[in-house]
């Protein structure tokens, strides 16, 4: 069956530009998560959606970062005025509702800010 998909797989942008990253979760999964994995560092939690609402936005690093989810499905992570320190792999995961459910990860979007 189809897993979590993310697009684009790679994105190179100039400093100061805005970027949008897209995540398509597994059909029927109500929970969706965004993480960031920087070179040499672990995974950093960014935001969590349950349905279309985001009960936990505590991981967003600054007000340049925002995310939305529509129709309980697709999510977009937007980074405005990108900085070089935003360069990382952005991972999306989805799960059935509930704390014990396994998260299924997408392949990630590798963002490079020049």
């Amino acid at each position, binding site marked *: 069956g189809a897993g979590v998909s993310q697009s684009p797989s790679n994105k190179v942008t100039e400093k100061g530009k805005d970027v949008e990253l897209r995540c398509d979760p597994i059909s029927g999964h109500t*929970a969706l998560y965004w993480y960031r994995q920087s070179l040499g560092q672990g995974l950093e939690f960014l935001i*969590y959606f349950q349905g279309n609402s985001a*009960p*936990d936005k505590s991981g967003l690093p600054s007000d340049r970062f925002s995310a939305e989810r529509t129709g309980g499905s697709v999510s977009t992570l937007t980074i405005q005025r990108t900085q070089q320190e935003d360069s990382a792999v952005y991972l999306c995961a989805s799960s059935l509702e509930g*704390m014990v459910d*396994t998260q299924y990860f997408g392949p990630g979007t590798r963002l490079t800010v020049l």
Partner: protein
Amino acid sequence: AQSVTQLDSHVSVSEGTPVLLRCNYSSSYSPSLFWYVQHPNKGLQLLLKYTSAATLVKGINGFEAEFKKSETSFHLTKPSAHMSDAAEYFCVVKTNAGKSTFGDGTTLTVKP
């Protein structure tokens, strides 16, 4: 608040010898605990999870982990390492608020 500490950033073992990847956690609530593996240029894959049932959890590829509440630990073990086990391993704690906290990862190297 919750946190995860993976005690070793790198572990190197010889093929056929046991593997131990250590993880300690802290959580204000009864957590769920997970181990994920990430092979080079591949996505994250779940190895196993603890969800307040049996304290000894068996996962894929011969891995196991034991939840020890008194030690706040969830160490990952495998009796005999295989070359294909070389990867990065992440310990994760998750509470009912939905937030997952990942450890910094342990890179496992398997020598022939």
